[in-house]
């Protein structure tokens, strides 16, 4: 079974540019989560999809971040325009539909804004 995949693995952009991160969850997992780790801090929650619907987006830092999950499959996270403080590692995770199921994480996308 394929795990959670993320693309790209690393992105370097200039302040003011736009970047789109992609996540493909484990097949059959309805729950998809985005997290972020900035340097020196703990991993923090951004938002949660159940299928194609946003269940919880309380962790999104501001309206420069836009997440979508088309057809309840893969998800994208767009940052527009990027700021220096957006640098960090963005993780995607997925889990099964019911119960307190463990979340399986992707390898992350390292975003560097210069």
């Amino acid at each position: 079974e394929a795990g959670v995949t993320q693309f790209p693995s690393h992105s370097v952009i200039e302040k003011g540019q736009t970047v789109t991160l992609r996540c493909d969850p484990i097949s059959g997992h309805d729950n998809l989560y985005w997290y972020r780790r900035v340097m020196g801090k703990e991993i923090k929650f951004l938002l949660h999809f159940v299928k194609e619907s946003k269940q919880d987006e309380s962790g999104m830092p501001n309206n420069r971040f836009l997440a979508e999950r088309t057809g309840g499959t893969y998800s994208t996270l767009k940052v527009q325009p990027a700021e220096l403080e957006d640098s960090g590692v963005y993780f995607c995770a997925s889990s099964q539909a019911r119960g307190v199921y463990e979340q399986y994480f992707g390898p992350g996308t390292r975003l560097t804004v210069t």
Partner: protein
Amino acid sequence: EDQVTQSPEALRLQEGESSSLNCSYTVSGLRGLFWYRQDPGKGPEFLFTLYSAGEEKEKERLKATLTKKESFLHITAPKPEDSATYLCAVRTIGQGNLIFGKGTKLSVKP
């Protein structure tokens, strides 16, 4: 505010020297506590889920325990390949997301 604190921040062990990592949590209602292992440049890898006080889980040289205030990850006779950052996370009642601690970086020297 829900919070997870891990200690120590870093731990250096000799191969075969057993020790424990601590995860203290303060939450409004615990739905589950999770332990993950993270290697450099990779995403967190799931290890254990604990649901209630008194519960224990084991996997190879690792054993996780849970009380009402904290969890321990015991490492018995560690090997160099156990070197990694170990993350603790909690899920609270009514929420789907995980709240993470900062992690404990474990180094095991041969």
